Structures are given as structure tokens and as C-alpha cells.
């Protein structure tokens, strides 16, 4: 690679020329944003170049990180633990001068679950922050980052993790737990409630940042 090409790539915000090894399909959300921006007329294009209108946040770089984590042994479940997984995102590509303005986690399932749960039965989803080096399981008494209950699982669940990622490190590690809870004695139906979590398919993290070019432009203005 010529020094000239390296220098040009650097000014475009890339440390080296990428050579995709396992190219993934373009996430539809990015494709939609790209098409929309391409169709904008000039003054709008200029005005919006440092803002992601679709997500209503400042930013000029939108990345989708694939999960590199693994399923974890269920350990000591409390109630019906349906799923426990380490979610791991390598954020080392974020440059030093970039300011994170949004982080959104998406959990995808193969299908929506429409099966009616028993009375008072719900699926409980918890996300704990974890250290990728240390024990990825949540410590007793530690508060989850996200805690939500669902009667039905949707095909896609979105969680805003912007507050948790205000000071992003080189990676983000989380433990995801989905458990079924409800009236005691209804274990058969709790088991079937757990089955809907088996449709777990993929996880991704959408991150919006404000690059140096936009930050410099903003301070000039």
C-alpha cells in the first residue's frame, strides 16, 4: 500500500485499507438511512450531515457491531432461567476523537411469540454489565443495567444503552438473562413460556458517534 494511499485513508478516518474477510449483509437500518440521505436535496443534505435524523441524535458515523459473545452455562438459576448469554462487542475501531451520542442494543428472535402465557406469568429480561476478562456472570446483589418484563416476545427488542456507554472502553461486555416467572405450580406452562426464548437469533449494537470533522465544524460555527 503506497504511503500516499495510507495518508488519504487516514484523512477519511481509516487506519488502514479494509479488506473484509467475512463480509456480513448490510443491516437494513443502515441501508435505509443511506438511501434516504442520497435522495436529499442540497441544503438539507448540508444541514443534516452532522445529525442522524432517523434516531434524532447528533452524529455523522453510524456503526453496527455484531455480537461476538457465547452462550453461558445456566449456573444457579433462580426460577426458570431460559437463556444466559455473554454479549461481547469489540469497540476498538472507535477513534479517540469520536464522541458517542447513542448506543442501541437490538435482540432479534426468529419469530414473535403469540402464545398466551398463564395468568400472572411473564418473561423477565435482564442485562448486566460484565468484564470480558473477569467472570461474566452477574454478581449477587448487583443491579442489572436493564430489567424488563414481557408477556409476549417480539421479533426485535431495542434497548437504549447510551447512558451505560458514555465513556466507552475498547469493548462492551454484557450478560443477557431471560427467565420465565409466574405462579408456582404451573411449571409446565413456564417451560413452554421458556420455549419462546429459544427463538433467540442474533444481537447487534448500533452506535452513533460524532467524528472529529463534525466536532470541528460545530466549534467553528
Amino acid at each position, binding site marked *: 500500500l503506497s504511503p500516499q494511499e495510507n495518508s488519504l485513508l487516514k484523512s477519511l478516518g481509516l*487506519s488502514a485499507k479494509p479488506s473484509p474477510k*467475512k463480509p*456480513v449483509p448490510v443491516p437494513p437500518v443502515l441501508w435505509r438511512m443511506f438511501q434516504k440521505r*442520497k435522495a436529499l436535496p442540497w441544503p438539507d443534505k*448540508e444541514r443534516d450531515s452532522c445529525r442522524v435524523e432517523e434516531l434524532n441524535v447528533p452524529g*455523522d*458515523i453510524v*456503526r453496527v457491531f455484531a455480537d461476538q459473545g457465547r452462550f453461558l452455562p445456566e449456573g444457579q438459576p433462580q426460577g426458570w432461567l431460559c437463556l444466559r448469554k455473554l454479549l461481547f462487542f469489540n469497540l476498538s*475501531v472507535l477513534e479517540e476523537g469520536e464522541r458517542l451520542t447513542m448506543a442501541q442494543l437490538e435482540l432479534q428472535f426468529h419469530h414473535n411469540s403469540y402464545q398466551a402465557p398463564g395468568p400472572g406469568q411473564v418473561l423477565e429480561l435482564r442485562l448486566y454489565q460484565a468484564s470480558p476478562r473477569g467472570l461474566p456472570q452477574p454478581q449477587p446483589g448487583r443491579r442489572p443495567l436493564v430489567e424488563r418484563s414481557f408477556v409476549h416476545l417480539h421479533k426485535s427488542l431495542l434497548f437504549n444503552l447510551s447512558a451505560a456507554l458514555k465513556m466507552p472502553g475498547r469493548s462492551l461486555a454484557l450478560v443477557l438473562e431471560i427467565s420465565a416467572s409466574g405462579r408456582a405450580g404451573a411449571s409446565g406452562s413456564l417451560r413452554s413460556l421458556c420455549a419462546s426464548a429459544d427463538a433467540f437469533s442474533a444481537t447487534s449494537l448500533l452506535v452513533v458517534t460524532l467524528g472529529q470533522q*463534525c466536532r470541528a465544524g460545530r466549534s467553528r460555527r
Partner: protein
Amino acid sequence: SAPSPPLTPSPLCKPRRLYISFSDVGWENWIIAPQGYLANYCGGDCPFPLAAELNSTNHAVLQTMVHSLDPQGTPQPCCVPVRLSPISMLYYDNSDNVVLRHYQDMVVDECGC
């Protein structure tokens, strides 16, 4: 989809048509879209007298005056972009993540002296 600059063979400072194809520079395997774009460039002279349509700065007016007195020591003002617009690019980064990035100042819309 950018409007094409006029194709008049004028020697004066104007945007000239330049289509940048990413496959020409060997970047087609990591840039997903667009495959290329109409970037344009500025070309042409900034002669005396500087006409209004040449978007000349006050500095160019004075440089033209000094050039007329000392053509050897002071060059004529040059033709440069005065208005550029951004484009968006979808690409794979070094870790195979898909990135959508808005790059400012990528398309030359207007030139001036």
C-alpha cells in the same frame, strides 16, 4: 444524482465534470455504496477583469492588481472550490463492521477565484 456542471468549453474558472469510480482506485471491495459519485473539480483561469460570476474574493481582486504590476513575482489568483456538499458512504471497516459515514466537502458545487 448531483446536477451536472455546464459543459461549455469556457477557459474561465468553473466546476468541471469528474466522476470518481471507487473501482478505479481499487476500493470497490470494502466500499459497499455508492460505487462512485460525481465529485467534479475546479478548473480555468481567473483573468483580469474578474467578472462577477467568478465568485472572486477581495483578496483575489488585489492579487490580480499586483499580478498586473509584477507578473513574474505574483501569480494570478487560482480557481478553487467555494461550495462543497457532503455524501454518505456505506463501507466495511477493518473489523468487518458495516459503517455508514457522512463525509463533508466531497462534491464541488461551485468554484471561485
